[in-house]
């Protein structure tokens, strides 16, 4: 499902630019399909870079990375879009499209996957109702609060029922009730078969929801249990 084999990553080094320092070194681990896993470590440990590799925003500079049965390190660019559509991501900075309404932001993955508009309408309406934004469907992200934007981002990440769900500090802008609701959503998706990886600093949340852990420090995998 997700397999890292001696994966290293450094930014830069393309188009003749000098390579930057290596941010991940010799990372090896495997996540079985359907697991729930915390990604832990202090700031600067490389959690976001590891997630970026997993949602195909970058490719490893060394080693082999297999995602959803595809060896992505050497795969053609053409096979990656279909793979990305099977991966849902909740970004720390939400990454919503500011000129689209909340509805259209959440609908985007379905429309990119070519779903019929009737199904898009039904699914997005239901999802926005579930995250408590039924009355804010027409609002654009700049008109939404931080918590509302985060809920739109979460709705967009899960609307397509992804096989792999990645979240980078997803509860950062949520109150504790909403954070618990989000954890329930992640666990429900995990129960339905989605592999979930959540990067978090929230020790209390991690303690309340014990699960497998990947712990990073200084760009290296410190522990995996």
């Amino acid at each position, binding site marked *: 499902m997700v397999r890292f084999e001696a994966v290293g990553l450094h930014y830069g080094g393309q188009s003749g630019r000098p390579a930057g320092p290596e941010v991940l070194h010799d990372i090896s681990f495997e996540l079985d399909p359907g697991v729930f896993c915390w990604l832990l470590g202090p700031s600067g440990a490389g959690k976001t870079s590891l997630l970026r590799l997993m949602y195909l*925003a970058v490719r490893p500079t060394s080693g082999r990375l297999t995602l959803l049965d595809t060896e992505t390190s050497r795969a053609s660019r053409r096979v990656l879009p279909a793979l990305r559509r099977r991966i849902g991501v909740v970004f720390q900075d939400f990454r919503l499209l500011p000129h689209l309404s909340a509805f259209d932001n959440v609908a985007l993955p379905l429309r990119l996957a070519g779903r019929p508009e009737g199904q898009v*309408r039904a699914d997005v309406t239901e999802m926005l109702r579930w995250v408590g934004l039924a009355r804010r469907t027409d609002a654009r992200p700049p008109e939404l609060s931080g918590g509302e934007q985060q809920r739109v981002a979460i709705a967009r990440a899960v609307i397509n029922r992804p096989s792999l769900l990645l979240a980078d500090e997803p509860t950062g802008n949520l109150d504790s009730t909403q954070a618990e609701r989000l954890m329930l959503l992640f666990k429900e998706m995990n129960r339905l078969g989605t592999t979930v990886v959540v990067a978090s600093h929230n020790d209390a949340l991690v303690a309340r929801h014990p699960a497998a852990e990947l712990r990073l420090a200084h760009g290296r995998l410190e522990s995996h249990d």
Partner: protein
Amino acid sequence: MAGISLRPARSDELGLRRALSDRMLPTLVAAMAFLAALALAGWTGAAALSRHWQQGVGSSLTVQVPQPHAAAAQGNGDRLATVLAVLIGTPGITTARALSDEELSDLLRPWLGAGAERLAIPLPAVIAVQLGDSGSDLAPLAHRLDQAAPGTLMENHDVWIRRLAVLARSLQACAGLAVLLVALVAAAVIAVATRAGLAARREAIEIVHGLGATDGLIAGRFAARATMLSAAGGLAGAVLAAPVLLALAGLAAPFGGGVPSANPLSALPLGLWLALPGLPAAAALIGWLTAQVTVHRWLRRLP
């Protein structure tokens, strides 16, 4: 839920309505289309003039017979009648007609003034000859005329026709080059606008790319917008060019042997009428191609 939520946003996920503005690009493409229309008119005009000169002048020649009323070297008549008989008996010559004294003095008036016939200058007879085939070899005919009436001069217009043909071809080549340059400049303008749009929408493109949009989809969105804006610019340029071309056609009509026409449809050659609607289509094609190539190249930087 409000109606706006039900609107499919497929067509503008990237916010290109603002990134590729509907003012700058169409205006520049309209200017290019206007220039292309002028260059095409130059091309068509040069071709028409060349055709007209070749048909009108290339198929005629002038024969001068000195001492027209002296006895011919061959036959019984005078030199003029003998030369006329040779000309009329030559295959490929449609008509051969000696100019009257009045026509001759009209021709000479600019040089000799009125009443040239009263001057004691021995004037040659001039025969205007129409050829059925302008490409025929006239050297044997000149030889035969000289034998029948020594001193007879045959002046064909080959040299002038060749020079005019070279001039017309050069003008056509320049017009063709101008059309090509205008197309290249239009492509460059569209490429710059597309790159500006890519820079302005970089974040949106990265988000949509990350959600699984293919290069083809992203390039298609840009190409659709660039095609629409270019076609609008091309149409505006063609519409603006039409009255200018009609005015130019009116001015040029006498040089082509015609008269200014009251009917605008016949004032411009058919080829130009067909080319004008072709301008928006060509602009649209250039817009589509340029945007596709520019966006695909740019997207290669994303994983």
